């Protein structure tokens, strides 16, 4: 009975979304305020029914009701409870319902938050968001319904269980975080669309969505970083980013959204770049839907493509509708959109923002080009060319370094223009420190890119630190405060500016981690108990191999004692070879899984994988990787999140 209620709730949500759109369209013609109120309430009703259906599916997963096909496919009695909940987004229909669930949360917040505000914009904001909800409701009602009963004429006593790769706590958090980011951009997009319809193009719609954009950007950033963290810990190839089509699908909207976050500052402060901001938010939201298309269509082979489905054309059509309607509307409003003010000087902050935008967008194009290169070449000459990480690295490393430089240059430029004296004064120390670093690294014979990257990191750190120092010095002299009080009050008074600078510092730390990749070392070898193998400056001795049966898998464990070159003990690594569904009498149905062990420090990670064991159980085959500076990628991620939260923190007034 309860599963039927889930399906009915989805039907009702679909009905409400159609009625919301109709009520508000009629309101736009008649301006009868009762219709606006009706539209608002129906909008909330859509979300209410979506919440009901999501909770019902969650409950069915938790209680293992295998009469529902989705529950039987993605969970089993052995699946730990936390992963029963995360199974909600493990499969196609569940993940689409989950998307809808998040969209409905955002929709509810937007409607409640703006009950008495932005009354001219809200009707079209609600219409736009309801259309997006309607799209996902059509998918979940008619194409891939998560409440489909199990199509079997036998009793399903236990389900298939969750893919072991997904039985990881990071994996339980990564997709929802990413979804919060993807879906979050529907709010600024809805405001932009409404602003276009209403010809209300000034700084008002920008102000109303700045915080939303930051929230969505924060979640998207954290989601991407968590995805990298999961890949690093679970996939066993020693890296965190493989330029996989689905990774790229999340990176592309991140690039355009980052550009948007910067350029809305220019519109807010100077009322410039109006058209450009429209283009960016339309592109960002379209890329979010396009990302779902890449994940769900099976058009690209990817670690994330657990499914190949008929959803591809539906998503592609929706992306086309979004692009055609938004850009069509934008061109029809071009006269109103044109900004009355122009950028005057190359050395102005607005010009710096423009160039950073340009590079972000071109980088996005580079990633888009590489991702779709196989599809494009196949369409042009029939040859399917597969593009690997070296291609993306070759294109994006120089562009990324240019962006890194701009994170330091931008904050030192003044609005309208920077005088030559000021340019020298602002840049002399950062450039000097950058050059000094380059000189040292050249003497140490590092590669060109490594020298450039580390030098630019120092350049940016000095540039941003000098901004903090200048601000603190002024406050300290003016109010006679201690350094820490001045720093605290300065940040508190100008949260978005200094929060942004902290985000820039986070990016620098991440670049330090990326650059460490140039020094990676790895070795695969067979080793017997008592033997020692040397990798880089470490010795690995196999102490023992043992077995353990756990609730949902069986594990073979190697115990490796790691010592440094002088014989000092460093750590014990215990990578495992697990077999999930190990009680299944059919050997082919059992699923092996390598559980790595990583020893992580600030300057390097020692990464171990237990590949296999010889048939007489005497030799373990192990892969060891020494990955310098990886930890800085994650630390950079924390700093980035911290900076964004500062920028987001609401002011009392």
């Amino acid at each position, binding site marked *: 009975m309860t599963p039927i209620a889930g399906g009915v709730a989805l039907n009702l949500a679909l009905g409400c979304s159609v009625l919301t759109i109709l009520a508000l369209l009629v309101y736009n013609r008649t301006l009868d305020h009762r219709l606006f109120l009706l539209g608002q309430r129906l909008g909330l009703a859509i979300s209410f029914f979506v919440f009901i259906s999501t909770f019902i599916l969650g409950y069915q997963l938790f209680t293992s009701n295998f009469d529902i096909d989705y529950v039987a496919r993605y969970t089993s009695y052995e699946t730990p409870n936390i992963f029963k909940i995360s199974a909600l987004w493990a499969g196609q229909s569940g993940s689409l319902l989950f998307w809808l669930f998040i969209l409905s949360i955002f929709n509810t917040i937007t409607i409640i938050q703006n009950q008495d505000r932005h009354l001219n914009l809200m009707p079209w904001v609600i219409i736009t968001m309801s259309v997006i909800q309607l799209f996902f409701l059509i998918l979940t009602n008619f194409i891939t319904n998560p409440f489909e009963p199990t199509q079997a004429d036998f009793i399903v006593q*236990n389900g298939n269980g969750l*893919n072991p790769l997904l039985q990881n706590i990071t994996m339980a958090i990564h997709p929802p975080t990413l979804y919060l980011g993807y879906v979050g951009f529907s709010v600024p997009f809805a405001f932009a669309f409404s602003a276009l319809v209403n010809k209300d193009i000034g700084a008002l719609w920008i102000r109303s969505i700045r915080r939303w954009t930051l929230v969505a950007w924060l979640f998207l950033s954290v989601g991407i970083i968590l995805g990298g963290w999961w890949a690093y810990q679970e996939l066993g190839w020693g890296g965190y980013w493989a330029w996989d089509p689905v990774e790229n699908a999340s990176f592309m909207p991140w690039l355009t959204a980052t550009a948007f976050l910067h350029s809305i500052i220019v519109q807010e402060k100077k009322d410039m770049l109006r058209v450009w901001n429209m283009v960016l938010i339309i592109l960002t939201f379209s890329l979010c839907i396009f990302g779902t298309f890449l994940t769900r269509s099976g058009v690209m082979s990817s670690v994330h493509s657990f499914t190949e489905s008929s959803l591809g054309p539906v998503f592609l059509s929706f992306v086309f509708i979004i692009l055609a309607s938004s850009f069509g509307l934008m061109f029809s409003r071009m006269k109103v959109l044109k900004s009355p003010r122009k950028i005057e000087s190359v050395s102005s902050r607005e010009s710096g923002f423009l160039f950073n935008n340009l590079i972000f967008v071109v980088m996005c194009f580079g990633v888009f080009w590489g991702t779709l290169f*196989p599809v494009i070449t196949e369409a042009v000459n029939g040859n399917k060319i597969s593009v690997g990480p070296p291609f993306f690295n070759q294109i994006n490393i120089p562009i990324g370094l240019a962006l890194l430089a701009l994170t330091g240059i931008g904050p030192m430029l003044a609005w309208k223009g920077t005088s030559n004296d000021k340019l020298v004064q602002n840049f002399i120390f950062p450039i000097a420190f950058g050059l000094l670093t380059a000189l040292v690294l050249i003497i140490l014979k590092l590669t060109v890119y490594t020298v450039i990257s580390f030098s630019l990191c120092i350049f940016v750190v000095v540039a941003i630190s000098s901004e903090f120092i200048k601000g603190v010095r002024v406050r300290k002299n003016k109010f006679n405060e201690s350094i820490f009080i001045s720093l605290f009050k300065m940040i508190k008074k100008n949260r978005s500016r200094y929060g942004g600078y902290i985000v820039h510092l986070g990016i620098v730390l991440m670049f330090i981690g990326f650059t460490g990749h140039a020094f990676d070392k790895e070795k695969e070898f067979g080793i017997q108990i008592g033997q020692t193998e040397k990798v880089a400056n470490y010795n690995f001795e196999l102490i023992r191999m043992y077995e353990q049966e756990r609730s949902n898998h069986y594990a073979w464990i190697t115990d490796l004692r790691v010592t440094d070159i002088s014989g000092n003990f460093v750590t014990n690594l215990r990578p495992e070879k697990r077999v999930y569904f190990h009680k299944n009498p059919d050997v082919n149905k059992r699923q092996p899984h390598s559980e790595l062990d990583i020893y992580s420090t600030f300057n390097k990670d020692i990464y171990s994988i237990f590949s296999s064991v*010889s048939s007489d159980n005497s*030799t373990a085959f192990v892969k060891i990787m020494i990955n310098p500076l990886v930890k800085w990628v994650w630390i950079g991620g924390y700093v980035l999140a911290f900076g964004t939260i500062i920028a987001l923190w609401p002011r009392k007034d």
Partner: protein
Amino acid sequence: MNTKIFSLIVGVLSVILFWIGWVSLNPSDEKAMARFISVEKLVNNEISSRTKLGGIVKKGSIQISKINQLDCVFVLKEGSAELVVNYSKTRPDLFKDGAEVIVTGEYRNGIFVADELQTKCASRYEGDLREESNYKLEELEI
């Protein structure tokens, strides 16, 4: 927008777009791109450049060296075409008889020497429940 800024924008755009185009035509790393072709085409034309192949691991064909467990030879089957593949690195967890795999490498003297081996995720997560039935499924006796 003043002419100086406009020229700079055009300049920056041209340089980056030229760079993307140039890398697309002349990737510096041999692993940057690989042609995806059929096993039959590879064998008939004896293509020795870097290629990518897809297919099924022939049942019973996996041979693992007793001296070095990392060294493995198997037969890749695509339709009726077959090809011996040599792979000497850590194998993915889902590599087994009948697994759907993608290999990247070069064809040398009748053997495909692969340096990349990817397995597709097990079909158990999307297939028909009865076909993919596991040990606890029981038929209803009517």
